[in-house]
């Protein structure tokens, strides 16, 4: 490439275009009154976000945003508007003046303050020159994982990640306590009260075959992401959400009832708790073997690690420690997302009676 295009960095141009797209989408979401459209645009927003994150070298974050944005958050939002309503009330322009002014003033102050932020891409900024670079330099010797993000997530900041996992578990518990575990839908079905508003003669054989083909592949890919997390982008958070997406796809295509018999709500909530226990248990195992909480160098009893193969070049304690806590994260994240989905999807019995029923008769003769 030569000429004027070579003068500009390709990454900078893509960065600019994607950020402008984000702003346009944000404005559109602010403007629309139909919540369905807003949710759809949020889906596109998260797609743009994932591409932008990839351009910014944040492969792991892009992975997470891709799975969460494409799989879980759209479905959860759809479940929520099924249970409420899909149109917002009209807002008069007078009601927008006060928030608009407040936002403009705060935004102006923030732009003024942003002048003191380091230049974009500055390698010598305080954030990049000290602790970030230190992690990059130390990971090879300390932990031996190629993916520094996984190393920081699982080992250096393992205590922080335990907190995050617990927060996710607690959030899932909160949703379940408010909306139920979806067992209401199950008992409704058993009592014959489950609304079946699928009109006869419709047979989505293409989708059912495709789902049968895709669900095992998605689960398989989740395991790849889980165990490849040391070497490439991936890890427990991403794999957990992918696993949950497989279950959600099953529920969407084969019905919630069938899915609840395959993955019982009780099993899901037990697994969610088990994941946090596995994580904390790994930490306590280190204390038992003479180390500190979540210091995986003490994962094995004294003397065992030296007898493992190739112990001079591999840090097996760190390796297995990260693998174990990532397994805990996988269990908690997957089970929590499934529980949340069950909560929203399983509650719709009464809401369907109010909202549904009008659309299914639109079918042409």
């Amino acid at each position, binding site marked *: 490439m030569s000429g004027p*295009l070579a003068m500009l960095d*390709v990454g900078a141009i*893509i960065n600019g275009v994607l950020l402008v*797209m984000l702003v*346009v989408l944000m404005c559109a979401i602010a403007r629309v009154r139909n919540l369905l459209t807003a949710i759809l*645009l949020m889906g*596109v927003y998260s*797609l743009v976000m*994932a*591409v932008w994150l*990839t351009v910014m070298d944040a*492969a792991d974050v*892009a*992975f997470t945003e*891709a*799975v969460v944005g*494409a*799989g879980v958050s*759209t*479905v959860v939002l*759809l479940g929520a508007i*099924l249970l409420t309503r899909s149109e917002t009330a009209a807002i008069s322009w007078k009601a927008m003046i006060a928030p608009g002014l407040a936002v403009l003033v705060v935004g102006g102050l923030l732009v003024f303050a942003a002048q003191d932020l380091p230049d974009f891409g500055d390698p010598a900024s305080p954030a990049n020159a000290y602790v970030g670079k230190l992690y990059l330099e130390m990971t090879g010797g300390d932990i031996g994982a190629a993916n520094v993000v996984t190393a920081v997530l699982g080992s250096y900041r393992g205590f922080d990640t335990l907190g995050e996992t617990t927060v996710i578990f607690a959030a899932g518990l909160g949703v379940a306590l408010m909306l139920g575990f979806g067992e209401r839908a199950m008992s409704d079905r058993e009592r014959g009260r*489950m*609304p*079946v*508003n*699928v*009109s*006869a*003669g*419709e*047979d*989505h054989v293409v*989708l*059912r075959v495709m789902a049968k083909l*895709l669900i095992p*592949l*998605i689960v398989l*890919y989740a395991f790849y*992401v889980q165990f490849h997390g040391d070497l*490439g*982008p991936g890890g427990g958070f*991403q794999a957990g959400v*992918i696993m949950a*997406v497989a279950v*959600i*796809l099953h*529920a*969407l*295509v*084969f*019905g*919630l*009832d*069938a899915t609840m018999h395959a993955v019982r709500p009780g099993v899901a909530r037990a697994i969610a708790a088990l994941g946090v226990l596995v994580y904390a248990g790994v930490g306590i195992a280190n204390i038992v073997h003479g180390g500190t909480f979540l210091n995986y160098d003490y994962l094995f009893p004294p003397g065992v690690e030296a007898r493992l193969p190739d112990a001079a070049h591999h840090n097996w304690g760190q390796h297995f420690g990260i693998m174990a806590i990532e397994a805990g994260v996988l269990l908690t994240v997957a089970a929590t997302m499934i529980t949340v989905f069950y909560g*929203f*999807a399983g509650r719709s019995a009464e809401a369907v009676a109010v*909202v549904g029923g009008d*659309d*299914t008769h639109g079918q042409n003769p």
Partner: protein
Amino acid sequence: MLEAAAAAILIAMVLMLVRALIGPTSYDRILAANSFGTKTVLFIGLIGFLFGRPDFLDIAIVYALINFVTTIALMKFFRYRSLQAPLASAGAESRDG
């Protein structure tokens, strides 16, 4: 060369975004979102090669797999107003069995 292809995909993404914003019916918007997803897969694959890190293809794979789910969820929402019901009538199930 890859820059030109990336620019083209980016233009296609912008066009798709316009359709998602103006699309008169909800189905136009779902179509735009789904097609935007496919373009995202291609774009992530392209910039993986453009920036010399083909590791990024993992993200493209996950999009290729999961983009489907959103489309199904939205379609089910519009058709059945429910996330519970299976995508086949009782008659279809019995014909299977």
